[in-house]
């Protein structure tokens, strides 16, 4: 009994790591743009499709397909960033919602148009189980955990010490002041956006071997999972996002086991609505940020 719960919690932490890598990009984009990116899950999907294409059509190894998946997503994110996201600096919140909804529709359906809407089998990755502390865990899950930790430590360091991280924080605090002191705000927005999209793609490629199937509409579910996380974490808050993702991952895992699998995908929004009733500013933020 106890070991089952523990196993579910470990599974939840792995799921949480996946969500965390996707969500942190979205929360950083919110930080600099004050806009929720409804198309964020689409970059997760694009990364996965890029990797699937590399393995199935180009015959590359899984490691190389990670590079292909992430790089192709970066190219697409650059185009979207140049033409759409940069225009959203200083635009009202509604514009952000509508524009990113539009991008989500375009990206998702273009992929379906090109590759078809059916489920595709992802044949790559390390799915052999390994035994750690008496628990059996697929190798890929261990990799996801390790990558998640590296990503978050890296982001913390970047946000605190590098020039790019500092300008990101500056833009998220006050756009006008940044313009006054000569920070190229559209450039910061573009870079943050590409970084976020690349992280989403990385998460997609890493998760694909665990999920096995790949399909055009998969990004939508990821977007819907990410939204409650970034709100719970406090919008624009990197550390808060990490813990909120873990909480959601574990909660989903427990609900799926003890309540019913079919309720797993609503856990996020149900928790979100309950949480907003007593802490409207997010779990890890003391004041309203927006």
């Amino acid at each position, binding site marked *: 009994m106890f070991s089952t719960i523990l196993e579910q919690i470990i599974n939840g932490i792995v799921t949480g790591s996946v969500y965390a890598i996707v969500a942190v990009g979205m929360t950083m984009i919110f930080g600099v743009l004050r806009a929720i990116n409804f198309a964020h899950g689409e970059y997760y999907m694009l990364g996965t499709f890029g990797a699937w294409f590399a393995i199935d059509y180009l015959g590359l190894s899984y490691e190389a397909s990670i590079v292909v998946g992430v790089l192709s997503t970066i190219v697409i994110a650059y185009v979207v960033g140049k033409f759409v996201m940069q225009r959203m600096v200083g635009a009202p*919140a509604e514009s952000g919602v509508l524009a990113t*909804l539009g991008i989500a529709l*375009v990206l998702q359906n273009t992929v379906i148009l090109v590759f078809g809407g059916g489920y595709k089998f992802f044949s790559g990755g390390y799915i052999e189980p390994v035994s750690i502390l008496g628990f059996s865990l697929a190798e890929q899950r261990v990799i996801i955990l390790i990558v998640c930790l590296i990503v978050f430590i890296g982001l913390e360091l970047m946000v605190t010490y590098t020039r790019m991280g500092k300008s990101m924080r500056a833009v998220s605090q006050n756009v006008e002041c940044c313009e006054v002191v000569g920070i190229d705000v559209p450039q910061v927005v573009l870079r943050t956006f590409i970084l976020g999209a690349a992280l989403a793609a990385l998460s997609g490629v890493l998760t694909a071997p665990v999920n096995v199937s790949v399909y055009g509409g998969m990004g939508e579910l990821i977007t819907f999972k990410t939204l409650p996380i970034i709100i719970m974490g406090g919008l624009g808050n990197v550390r808060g996002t990490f813990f909120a993702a873990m909480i959601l991952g574990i909660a989903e895992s427990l609900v799926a086991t003890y309540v019913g699998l079919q309720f797993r995908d609503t856990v996020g929004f149900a928790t979100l609505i309950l949480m907003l009733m007593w802490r409207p500013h997010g779990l890890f933020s003391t004041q309203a940020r927006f």
Partner: protein
Amino acid sequence: MSLTEVSQSQQRRDLRLPLGLLLLLAALSAPFVASTYVVHALIIALIFMLPAHGLNLLVGYTGLLSLAQAAFFGIGAYASGLLAVTYGTPFYVNVAAAGLAAGAIALPLGIPALRLRSTSFVMCTLGFVIIGQAIAKNWISLTRGDMGLSSIPKPHFALGPLSFTVSGTTAFYYLALTVGILATLGVWMIVRSPAGRNMIAIRENETLAESVGIPTWRYKLIVFMLSAVFAGVGGSLYAHYLTVVSPLTFQMYYSTTMLIIVLGGGAGTISGVVFGSLLFVGLTEALRVTPELRMIAYGLCLLVLVFWFRKGFAPVINRLWDSIGSAK
């Protein structure tokens, strides 16, 4: 205002009335000149116009961007379908019940949601759609899950000895047209009333509105419920028209479509919503051959609207309307 200006506007109004009557006549005669397929598209446009009117009250007049319309649309469709299939209640009871159910459910949902601002509010309303779909899928004893409800009867009216079933496309068109015109008049009356002006005040500056004594919280809640009632009635008509309801009625697609209709037509204008539903449902139907292209076109439409037509197409239509109205 000079005298000449007055006479000019007088002249315009004289021409607008016959033009309006002409449009009404065109709407009334549509089933006789258009093909069944076009009439079907018009019915869908008229049905979608209802939740769009509701959303317009919320987005266009009160300034609250909501994605919950699909949830209330679905609640209306299910309420109506369940009543008709289980109890065989008459059509007007179903429509009223659908509107009331959506409005009643909007109350407990609106109380926590309306405490939030901009982005969080949008997110919370999106959550309603997702939770609604999960309930429709999993409360199998009530909703029959993924199978959905089928063979919902076509609207049936019984007045004493007279009884009449709205079975054909033409008959349903007139029913939808009647409901559509009533809803449009209803919205017009609401926005022309002092309440409508208070809503606009909230949209423009909520803090200022509150400080001059407008009970903003109560207004927002009532408009949220009202928008749900419109969506519920629309959902009811949709259920009776298609005669099937499934969990897919709770889809983001519907919320996105309603939003495109309102913002594309012109938020905060009634003519914009009417025009928007015809235009965007027409676009959807025209692109029905390839659903992927249809959604891509929708997405591009959203981008074009956001970046080039901030106010939607309403200013363009109004200018056209004025120029036609003032032409000899």
